[in-house]
């Protein structure tokens, strides 16, 4: 165990995390890497496997240190985004140390700091690395100062490197061995292994990525997930080299993979603890939270013809995303789609981004909502996240909404602005405390619904990018919630209806009306746009009828150009959704729903 190091790399985006990781892998397996690359060229399967092994999980490297001893270095990847801190935390929990990469031309930046605090929370030992020293603009001395001042790390430990040119890589490897601690753990104790990730493999079923904390895990063992209680037989264990490399067992301190014959990723809870069925550990590892959707939104294809494609894409995404829940949904305005549940706003963003990029789909997303608990007059209680199912106000006795405990890290000088922001978002601040020089933590309790729209962007703005935000679910509390309908030319547009706190309803409805006014083209009649709670109109705007085109001269018989313009106009019209007698361009839905978040 003394010859094992489990570490991750934390960095602000673009500071060179991936490049450094590639260099470390290369330096530790030069021969292997060459063979590997030669193979890759004509072996797509390996390429696929490589994607699984390296891109988003862990890799085990052999490194002979200067003292002559062979060490096993396990590099564990962390999701780049600290916003998704549950996932980052799980990866950090598998490590004892981390490299903190800072770009020598950019210096310490917001994500560096935010990541650093997460790492400190998990008691990781930190080793600063100053990257890109090959660049003329590199200022290593200034960055050393920042590492001292802003990160509170010892600037003399910092290793200057150029990941791109391969300078200083040996020093980094040596630093990992000398500065980062080996894992502690009891080989003889009952098995405790943290499942920090899982992937679906078309040939082998679900592959689990684990960090063994205590005990030993071997093929043939019967294991139990301590939280879900499910039991499985271990078919194979091994190390993540450039490809999976089977081994007989994984000892305390090791990082590797486990294949048990689990068929679907939905049967796995990331963060769960594996133990032996026969000799189980007393308690699971701390910090487990089951993945439960808290944010809901409907996803529609821009063109109803793409529903089939969307359906296939959702299925594929769900193969590797156990947290994504969805079911078929339909809207009068937008046709068929899916009502989806997400772990949070970032999860939602990741899913829609992947649908767009990997599956090339154009989407319309309805306004995100939380799950409300509604007590009906007749004594029944229903949970509702979709405005379409909101009961008549007369039938509702009371409503509760989910609250969160928010933790905001920010530089002291932005405290005033952040407190103001909290007030605007119905947050009750519980207290503030110093984390490090000039850096504060504000904790607050607030409705989750308040975070769904512009809170996060505003926080970034008022803290100039140096604020970070994290939260955990708290409980449900009474709230006055209303359903707001948006009416265009007196017709309800179902896809635009939303649930909101009564105090916030008017402002949001006004925003919708204003956006629609901008994005619905004028038509042959006047179009009123209204926001309404039941029969009560709370916001309105009007689109005047079209009155004048800029009719260009049709000179010299160049009719073709004019006709082409007209054809384009007609094509645009074909992409509109008809609501009542009004044609609404899809872009109108997109712009209303998107700008609401970025407002």
């Amino acid at each position, binding site marked *: 165990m003394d010859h094992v190091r489990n570490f991750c790399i934390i960095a602000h985006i673009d500071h060179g995390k991936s490049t450094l990781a590639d260099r470390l892998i290369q330096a530790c397996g030069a021969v292997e890497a060459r063979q590997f690359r030669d193979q890759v060229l004509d072996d797509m399967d390996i390429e696929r496997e490589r994607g699984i092994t390296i891109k988003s999980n862990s890799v085990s490297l052999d490194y002979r240190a200067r003292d002559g001893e062979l060490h096993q270095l396990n590099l564990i990847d962390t999701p780049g985004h600290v916003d998704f801190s549950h996932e980052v935390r799980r990866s950090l929990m598998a490590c004892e140390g981390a490299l903190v990469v800072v770009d020598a031309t950019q210096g310490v930046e917001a994500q560096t700091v935010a990541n650093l605090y997460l790492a400190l929370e998990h008691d990781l030992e930190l080793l600063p690395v100053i990257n890109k020293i090959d660049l003329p603009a590199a200022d290593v001395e200034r960055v050393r100062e920042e590492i001292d001042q802003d990160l509170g790390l010892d600037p003399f430990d910092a290793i200057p490197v150029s990941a791109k040119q391969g300078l200083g890589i040996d020093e980094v490897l040596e630093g990992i061995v000398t500065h980062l601690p080996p894992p502690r753990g009891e080989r003889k104790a009952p098995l405790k292994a943290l499942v920090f990730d899982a992937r679906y493999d078309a040939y082998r079923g679900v592959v689990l990525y684990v960090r063994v904390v205590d005990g030993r895990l071997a093929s043939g063992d019967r294991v139990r997930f301590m939280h879900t209680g499910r039991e499985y037989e271990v078919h194979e264990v091994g190390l993540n080299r450039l490809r999976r490399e089977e081994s007989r067992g994984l000892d305390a301190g090791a990082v590797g993979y486990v294949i048990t014959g689990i068929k679907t990723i939905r049967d796995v809870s990331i963060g769960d603890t594996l133990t032996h069925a026969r000799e189980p550990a007393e308690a699971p590892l701390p910090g487990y939270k089951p993945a439960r959707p808290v944010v809901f939104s409907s996803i529609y294809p821009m063109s109803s013809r793409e529903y089939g494609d969307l359906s296939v894409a959702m299925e594929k995404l769900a193969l590797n995303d156990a947290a994504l829940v969805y079911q078929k949904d339909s809207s009068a305005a937008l046709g068929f789609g899916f009502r989806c549940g997400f772990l949070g706003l970032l999860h939602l963003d990741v899913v829609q981004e992947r649908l767009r990029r990997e599956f090339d789909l154009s989407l319309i997303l309805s306004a995100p909502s939380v799950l409300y608990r509604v007590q009906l007059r007749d004594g029944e209680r229903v949970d509702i996240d979709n405005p379409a199912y909101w009961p008549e106000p007369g039938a509702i006795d009371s409503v509760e909404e989910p609250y969160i405990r928010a933790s905001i890290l920010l530089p002291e000088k932005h405290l005033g602005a952040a407190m103001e922001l909290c007030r605007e978002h119905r947050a009750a601040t519980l207290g503030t405390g110093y984390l490090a020089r000039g850096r504060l933590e504000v904790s607050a309790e607030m409705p989750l619904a308040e975070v769904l729209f512009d809170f996060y962007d505003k926080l970034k703005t008022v803290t100039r990018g140096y604020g970070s935000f994290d939260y955990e679910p708290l409980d449900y509390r009474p709230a006055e919630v209303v359903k707001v309908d948006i009416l265009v030319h007196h017709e309800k547009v179902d896809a635009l209806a939303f649930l909101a706190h009564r105090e916030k309803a008017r402002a949001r409805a006004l925003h919708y009306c204003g956006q629609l006014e901008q994005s619905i083209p*004028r038509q*042959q*009649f006047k179009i009123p746009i209204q926001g309404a709670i039941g029969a009560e109109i709370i916001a309105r705007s009007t689109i*005047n*009828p*079209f*009155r*004048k*085109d*800029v*009719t*260009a*001269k*049709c*000179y*010299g*018989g*160049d*009719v*073709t150009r*004019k*006709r082409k*313009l*007209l*054809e384009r*106009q*007609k094509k645009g*019209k074909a992409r509109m959704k008809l609501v009542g*007698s009004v044609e609404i361009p899809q872009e109108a839905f997109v712009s209303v729903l998107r700008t609401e978040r970025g407002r």
Partner: protein
Amino acid sequence: MTARSPAAASRRPTAGRSARVAPERASLPSGAGEGAGLYVHVPFCSAICPYCDFAVSVGAAPRREAFVRDLLREIALWREWREPFDTVYLGGGTPSILGAGQLGRLLDAVRSHLPVRDDARIFLEANPEDVAHEAVSAWRRLGVHTLSLGVQSFDDRELRFLGRRHDAAHAQGAVRECVAAGFDTMSLDLIFGLPDQSADTLRASLDTAVALGPDHVSCYQLTVHEGTAFGRRRARGRLVEMPEDEQAARYALIHQVLARGGWRAYEVSNFARAPRHRSRHNMKYWRHLPYLGLGPSAHSFDGARRWWNHRGIEAYRAALDRDERPVAGSERLTREELALEALMFGMRTTEGIDLRDFRRRFGVDIAARNRRFVGDCLESGLLERAGDRLKPSTAGLAVADTLAARLEL
């Protein structure tokens, strides 16, 4: 260029074939039987207006003479054209920049090589700075029937904004000179919708126009095109177009003032004192009648196919040097495309659309196909129904393009 283009076809001119493609029966508009139109594009101006996106440049005298020779060569290449012309339109650019001698040679060549009817009407576009007693008499002698004068405004500030080379006083003098010369139709062009044009300055220009007594007025809305000086100003936020509702109000004002003076609209931008003063030439474009365009960027149409010349004078000349027609591209119009154009023109002219004729030509009953939309428009007064005709009202003309875009085929 594909081998199917007219330019390629013209390399082996077979008498009477390349241009006399019989118009497809179904697409022939009723009331055809009129002649074809001949357009000649003169791509020179004394300076380039900041809103202009025509194919023009500033040409010194030697370049102009060289170009006249090019035109003569192009004219000769169209000897097989058979459809008789009853209009000859000299446009641009500024054809009045050419001397009377040059214009005379052009017209002579046209008459001797092409089937121009004896009673064909000759149209000439002129800019006020070229109007002088001598020149005007020469134009009359050349047989110019309609003189169209690019006045644009009678307001000095607006003229400066538009980058014109004349002032209001000169423009008035020029109009008087031309009116006095006794052209059959004296027309003047105005531009409205300048970014901060007030109703008052527009009205003043219109009143002046009315008082000068032309037979025909064209009143175009300023269009800001990308790639022009105004387009660049707009992109930098230094030129903001007039808001839609104000445009509409100005447009209504034009109709009101001109109607009171006796000029009735017959197209989106065109007004005539009597039906005989309407532009017989322009109406050919709107009615899908055949026309032949000569000179850079000019477009031609034979009832089924449309083709266009090279826009740049160099490419235009290079083709002529090879003894080829300077055609840059062409398209054969499908029935749907012809229908769309007919719809577009129908909405731009007070004649509107003859529903029965449209159904006969294109197999679409516009009114039945768009029952709801047409109903809305009849109710709100954008469209009017007169027997088989569906016609845009004044308010409808203002949104002609939108109506054409909304009406389904």
